[in-house]
């Protein structure tokens, strides 16, 4: 059985990609950003997921204003980096995982999430920047450490899907993954944010209090977070800060109770507050593991909770 073992939240600021591509990561301004991801890269190397599902948004690259799908799942075998005006980023073509992707599509559509299927799609910085932040710099002629299933969410044209809808889609994705027969360890990414506004006279808005509350609730009370209205995101976290709803897809795909493995926050990367979090599902009640670690009352309660969570989500 495939299962989701952890979730990653990460900003996807384009200038971060440019800093990597132009060899500026050691400059003090950028070092401040990249040093926050060193532990994450070590965590990722150790975790070695078999597949990553990456929730991101396209920025006038693959989708123009001609077609604006609310949720679009990439089922292709590969996803080339898009030319965003300066030539495609010098990163490897992203390999897909079509068998699992189409399984997810079929499962979640029958669960009433009407996805758009993309069998040919280019991916922009929204996806490749978080990949670099978590997997490190990868030579164009080499390959990313694992295949990826992209899920593009419209957050460019208002209204994006609600936070609650995103959260529930995450639950449907989890159910789909868990009904896939192959033994796969899956990590899911939510990307974008945190607070930023890049349009209009109010551009440059940053709200660190909001961002902290967002991260705190993401870990501890995602259901409360899922109720936050779009207008609150836009007012408090900037017109483009509404991207944060995408993190709720990631959160919905995890257990109700998770462990916060790591968190990083810095302001700014160009116009944006950079936020990053790693949330891990707690190990399922492992009978064999009992030999090494005597189950304390706390562990038993945690195991019981995670079993309940699984039952609830079915």
């Amino acid at each position: 059985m495939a299962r989701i073992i952890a979730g990653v939240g990460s900003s996807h600021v384009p200038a971060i990609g440019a800093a990597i591509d132009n060899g500026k990561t050691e400059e003090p301004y950028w070092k401040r950003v990249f040093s926050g991801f060193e532990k994450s890269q070590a965590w990722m190397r150790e975790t070695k997921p078999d597949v990553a599902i990456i929730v991101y948004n396209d920025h006038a690259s693959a989708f123009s204003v001609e077609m604006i799908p609310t949720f679009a799942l990439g089922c292709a075998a590969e996803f080339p980096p898009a030319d965003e005006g300066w030539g495609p980023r010098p990163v490897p073509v992203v390999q897909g995982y079509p068998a699992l992707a189409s399984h997810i599509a079929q499962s979640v559509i029958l669960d009433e999430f009407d996805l758009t299927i993309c069998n040919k799609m280019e991916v922009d910085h929204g996806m490749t920047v978080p990949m670099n932040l978590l997997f490190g710099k990868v030579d164009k002629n080499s390959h990313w450490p694992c295949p990826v299933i992209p899920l593009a969410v419209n957050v460019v044209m208002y209204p994006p899907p609600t936070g609650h809808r995103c959260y529930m889609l995450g639950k449907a994705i989890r159910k789909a993954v868990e009904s896939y027969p192959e033994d796969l360890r899956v990590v899911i990414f939510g990307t974008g944010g945190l607070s930023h506004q890049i349009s209009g006279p109010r551009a440059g808005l940053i709200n660190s209090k909001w961002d902290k509350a967002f991260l705190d609730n993401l870990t501890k009370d995602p259901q409360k977070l899922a109720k936050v209205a779009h207008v609150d995101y836009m007012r408090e976290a900037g017109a483009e800060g509404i991207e944060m709803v995408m993190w709720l897809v990631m959160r919905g795909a995890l257990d109700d109770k998770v462990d916060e493995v790591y968190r990083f926050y810095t302001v700014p990367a160009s116009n944006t507050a950079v936020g990053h979090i790693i949330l891990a599902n707690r190990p399922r009640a492992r009978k064999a593991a009992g030999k090494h670690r005597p189950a304390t009352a706390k562990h038993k309660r945690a195991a019981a909770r995670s079993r309940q969570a699984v039952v609830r989500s079915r």
Partner: protein
Amino acid sequence: MPRKEQVYDDIPGTFVFDAERSREGFGINMFCMSLMKDENRKAFKANEAEYLKRFRLTPAQTEAILKRDYNRMLELGGNIYFTAKLGATDGHSFQHLAALMTGNTQEGYAKMMLGGGRSVEGNRSRSGKDAPSAFVAGGGAAKKSTKPKSKPKSKSKSKSAKRK
């Protein structure tokens, strides 16, 4: 038909790219998208007004583009991810556009960002809804000041770059 008043129109200095603006601004955004191709950039640069005739634009939209009035483009249905392509065609960094839109100098804008960005305080609402959202107030973040702000300190003077 005048634009229907929306709840988010109360947010100052912000043009939300909603379904209505998306419909109205289709021509602006398709024009911007065309600039992804080098031959189109050259054709546009050779004769801007002529090139713009290829797109379904209102006179006001054409004028906003020719004048590089980025806020007006947003108001008339342009989206920032698209209009940024026009800025790139002109050889400008995004910060240049941000400075234009905020009525700041590029240096001033850069300084404001290094100082932690534009504060939300006083920038939430045109109609005086200045209280933080219940989510932040009750989210456990209000109890004490958060660490991130403390990093680039003593730059608060540049924060009120422009309030609208």
